[in-house]
């Protein structure tokens, strides 16, 4: 009994004292903020921030290599939380992915039969894609595949974004070869959903809903928010107040008002 107490006790003392000396002597600084940042992140490890997972991003923030607004998936709340930890004010706008083409399988023509990998970027390597419209959505759904939040589904050869699920991480935009899916401020609800800068006559030949550059919307807009660039109407988000007057006027029904389509309504209320 005595021996037991002495030996284990002695061992305990040596270890306790030794470890405490060692921990001082060999101390290596770890930033406690890094842990806090990691905890505040959503943990989806989606990589949209450009770092290898949430851990990498946390380290980068603490090093100062990444902005607190860098996590698009986490959105405003995360940015605020990170700002609080890092002691900076965060200023972020909620963003969402929007599709800038309305010419699905039914509205457009094809110029050939594509036999290849079901991936939009790969498909455009072959004569620019099988759609006659050189600007339109390829329709193979690569954006839906890369979306880490499962927010995109394909319908009629076009992606449909679930605004509630989409945190605007921007992965789809990067994956799209045609730039037909873009991440924009979520409160810009009226959108010209065409990407074609071809002249109206050419567009008419291959797409029944494309923007033909007729300019009616430009005249209809009370805020002068719409301009015509390369035969394609362009809405300036800053000026547009989502009144939706242009929507009714567009002869090819190309302009959409997302205020009137499901999910965004609810989000607005929340």
């Amino acid at each position, binding site marked *: 009994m005595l*021996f*037991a107490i002495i*030996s*284990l006790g002695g*061992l*305990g003392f040596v*270890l306790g004292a*030794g*470890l405490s000396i*060692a*921990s001082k*002597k*060999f101390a*290596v600084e770890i930033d406690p903020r890094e842990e806090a940042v990691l905890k505040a992140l959503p943990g989806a490890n989606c990589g949209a921030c450009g770092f290898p997972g949430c851990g990498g991003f946390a380290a980068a923030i603490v090093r100062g290599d990444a902005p607190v607004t860098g996590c698009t998936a986490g959105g405003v709340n995360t940015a605020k939380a990170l700002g609080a930890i890092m002691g900076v004010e965060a200023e972020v706008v909620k963003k969402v992915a929007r599709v800038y083409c309305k010419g699905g399988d039914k509205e457009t023509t094809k110029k050939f039969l594509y036999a290849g990998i079901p991936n939009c970027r790969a498909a455009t390597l072959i004569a620019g894609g099988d759609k006659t419209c050189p600007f339109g959505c390829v329709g193979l759904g690569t954006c839906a595949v890369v979306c880490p939040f499962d927010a995109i589904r394909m319908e009629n050869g076009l992606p449909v974004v679930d605004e509630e699920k989409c945190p605007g991480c921007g992965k789809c935009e990067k994956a799209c070869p045609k730039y037909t899916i873009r991440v924009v401020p979520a409160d810009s609800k009226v959108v010209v959903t065409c990407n074609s800068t071809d002249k109206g006559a050419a567009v008419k030949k291959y797409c029944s809903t494309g923007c033909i550059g007729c300019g009616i919307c430009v005249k209809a807009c009370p805020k002068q928010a719409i301009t015509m660039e390369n035969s394609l109407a362009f809405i300036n988000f800053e000026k547009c107040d989502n009144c939706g007057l242009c929507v009714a006027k567009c002869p090819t029904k190309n302009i959409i008002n997302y205020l009137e389509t499901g999910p965004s309504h609810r989000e607005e209320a929340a």
Partner: protein
Amino acid sequence: MVSNELTWYMILMSSILINNIVLIRFLALCSFFGVSNEIETSIGMGMAVIFVMTLASASTWILWYALLLPLHLEYLRTAVFILVIAGLVQFVEMYMKKALKSLYNAMGIYLPLITTNCAVLAIALLNIDYGLGFVNSIIYTVGVALGYTLAIILFAGIKERLALSTAIPTPFRGHPIAFITASLMSLAFLGFSHLFGL
């Protein structure tokens, strides 16, 4: 079963192949499954295990025969061994982090994982249970650690390939298929059973 009667290469054979610590003896599984996603990290882990296990076996063997046994303190074995191992690992880690930065990056980061790696304690205990002499203890320990390293490197190779597969049925992705793989590896290693009559 290993004993003092075996030659050194028989002890190695037994501990590396026949009674492979991971695949047949079920030890060190946590790190086997956890740190095997890449071949490179698994090599680092293997090296760390070889190093720590040898150190731990040597020191616990000496403690046992020089202290606990003469003083009839057999019942303190578990407590003393694990304390010594934990302390040792922590010292080594701290020292490496400070003094041997490159070595630390190669294998030191795996050290904390080893404290809770039951194989280290198990081998320290088995050395005593089998009544191995000092040299045989070390040979046995190195063999066990090599067996671990072999298994984890092969496993990491397979896991790298599995990571390229998108066809694994959903409920089996990740850990379950890793266990299936371990099962089949273990099945293959049973081919070594009773090798050289061991």
